[in-house]
């Protein structure tokens, strides 16, 4: 008898309905968008990761979802168009939910036309998925997903040509993974790379990979391909590297060296420039030859030299992003609102375009 060609039963997006119900039950606010106001409000004060480029912005909001009896963890990724200083047409196409533990290793990057982005979301003790979003049918591509306790953890992903690449680490060592951004993520490869990266310490962009060891004081920069990372250059940062962000041509790092500093490392020459120093850990964004920095409520930008202030946020800055000309700020605000019969303080994270890169 000829075997049937039936595929395993994809169960549809059934859980999405349950998740929505769950989110409502948990009191989590979804995006309250603002196509009318040109701004977007995200419920809560989650950990925000963001990127901007190609006339679009993408962000991931990681926070615990506290229900009446238990807590689970969620990362909601969204993307929207940016037109002038307005953010319009936001959608929330990817949502990662887990009870395995907090999602601490999140990275989101713009990844091609149509507001596409890559997303990784891992925990301290478990691996999370590498996702590219989305096809013309608005379907996400899960390029890698394995929560086996021994599975490598992806720490940073990005688009390089037509390939989604990600840097992962685990018991078997670090590696660069690659896969096509198409249905079923074909041609998945992996190649070993040196080092011991961790959350926030790996980043991929067009033609560039950068990563740092946990507790390390230098970054590695190289050119990614299916066979690994070539031309690796190790560049000292003068302190413990806490975050790296690669963009074509350079790498931005957050470094702990007494106080905090933001460095810009030229990929071609390895030259390091300190563009900002301060006492509190800053938020960073990079794109289009520019760096955006959020320090407290101050928003600063740099095109290579010392960062200059471009404005103040209305609350503590959760994240910043830039496409090289504009700066998007995610600011934590609170307001009094009626919740049922009671008046409560409602926390939201407002997303708005603030000023231009100087």
């Amino acid at each position, binding site marked *: *008898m000829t*075997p*049937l060609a*039936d*595929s*395993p*039963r*994809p*169960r*549809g*997006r*059934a*859980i*999405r*309905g*349950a*998740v*929505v*119900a*769950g989110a*409502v*039950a948990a009191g989590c606010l979804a995006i309250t968008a603002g196509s009318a106001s040109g701004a977007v409000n995200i419920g809560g004060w989650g950990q925000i990761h963001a990127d901007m480029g190609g006339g679009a912005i993408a962000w991931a909001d990681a926070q615990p979802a506290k*229900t*009446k*009896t*238990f807590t*689970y963890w969620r990362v909601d990724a969204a993307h929207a168009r940016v037109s002038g200083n307005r953010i319009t047409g936001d959608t929330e196409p*990817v*949502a*990662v*939910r*887990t*009870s*395995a*533990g907090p999602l601490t290793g999140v990275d989101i990057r713009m990844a091609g036309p149509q507001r596409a982005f890559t997303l990784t*979301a891992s925990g301290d*003790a*478990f*691996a*999370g*998925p590498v*996702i590219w979003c989305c096809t013309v049918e608005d*379907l*996400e591509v*899960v390029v890698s*997903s*394995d*929560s*086996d*306790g*021994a*599975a490598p953890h992806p720490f940073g992903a990005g688009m390089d040509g037509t390939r989604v690449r990600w840097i992962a680490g685990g*018991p078997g060592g670090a590696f660069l993974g690659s896969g096509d951004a198409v249905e*079923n993520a074909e041609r998945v490869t992996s190649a070993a790379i040196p080092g011991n990266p961790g959350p926030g310490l790996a980043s991929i962009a067009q033609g560039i990979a950068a990563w740092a060891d946990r507790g390390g004081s230098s970054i590695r920069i190289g050119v990614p391909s299916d066979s690994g990372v070539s031309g690796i250059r190790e560049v000292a940062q003068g302190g413990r590297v806490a975050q790296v962000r690669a963009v074509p041509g350079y790498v931005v790092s957050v470094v702990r060296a007494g106080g905090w500093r933001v460095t810009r490392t030229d990929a071609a020459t390895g030259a390091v420039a300190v563009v900002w120093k301060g006492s509190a850990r800053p938020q960073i964004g990079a794109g289009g030859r520019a760096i955006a920095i959020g320090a407290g409520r101050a928003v600063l930008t740099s095109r290579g030299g010392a960062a200059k202030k471009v404005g103040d946020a209305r609350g503590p800055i959760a994240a910043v992003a830039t496409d090289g000309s504009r700066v998007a700020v995610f600011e934590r605000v609170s307001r009094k609102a009626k919740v049922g019969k009671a008046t409560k303080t409602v926390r939201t994270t407002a997303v708005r375009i603030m000023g231009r890169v100087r």
Partner: protein
Amino acid sequence: MRTWRMIVGIAGMAMAAALAMPASGAQLALQDDQLHNLSGPALDQRLDLLKSTGTKVSRVDIIWRSVAKTRPAEPTDPADPAYDWARYDQMLKGLIARDITPMITFYWTPEWASRSGKSNAAPRVADAASFATAIARRYNGTWPDGSGGTLPLVKRIEIWNEPNIGTFWSPQCRRQGGRYVMESARQYSALVAAAYPQIKAVSPSSIVTGGVTGPVGGSVCEKTDSSVGTITFAEEMIRQKVPIDAWSMHLYPIGSPLQAYFVPSWKTIPQITRLVDRLKPGAPIYVTETGYHTSYNRYHRYFVSEAQQAAWVGETMQAANQYPRVEVAVWFNLQDNPFWTGGLMRMNGTKKPAWAQFTAQVGATPRPATWAP
């Protein structure tokens, strides 16, 4: 890591033994969604693997569009030459031979019966009811097997799979006067109402099982394939006075089985039971799919660790046993595939910690006489 897994496994077995439930408790069962893709020796090997889990009950998918690739002239007659039952005969005989009680579900509309040509198209009532009748006739315990014996009796027949989700039943909603209104529950009710007497006529001992709802909470008809919530679906079936012998539903809770409370989850069983009583007082409830995924995938965005999955096999049975009306909880699935990572085994064939927990749990649970093959 392997050592850790072994510790989890041993601890899980010990916990399962401690939680061993009384004979009157729910059955823990297992489905293998690969069975209908196999035939011949490969199918037998797979059945042996299923048997090795210790499960005493299993749910079988009958793929309508595979059995009936062309329109049968006599659709209620299983002997119609358009039908090809070979692998299902082998599968169901193989399950019985291994002392596993099968439950049947059928779905995926054949092209000839599909308005859209797609397999998830809502079937015409007469076509689907006739196919249900053919299944009931063939597996009523008297149908000749072609080698001097008879094919087994399969008592429990589920009408469709997750008819409240567009993936399996489309459309869910239709546009009417500038807004969308629910369509699927009404059409599905008509199917069950038509199939019920026909099945009973050819297999009086059949337990016709309706609902089979997917794990959807809220209902908002805002497009053609919006999902319809379990409660809403049941309420419409009540309005349509649909005859059933048992209600089935699928639970994939967010949170542990004992803590989750979103609709539908174990804690909401009493809510469902009240509705089921309005369909048929005292009707049993079958949870014909439940489980937890151990990695993210597009279709199921909630996942847990493998250790949690193992622990929650035991908790699933604890939760099920709080509700005497729940007779069975079918763990879905035996093995992971790219679309489904809730298996007891990984895609590479290695066993997750949940395997040991599952086998310990079913080993401690006698099968009630009413569930004997």
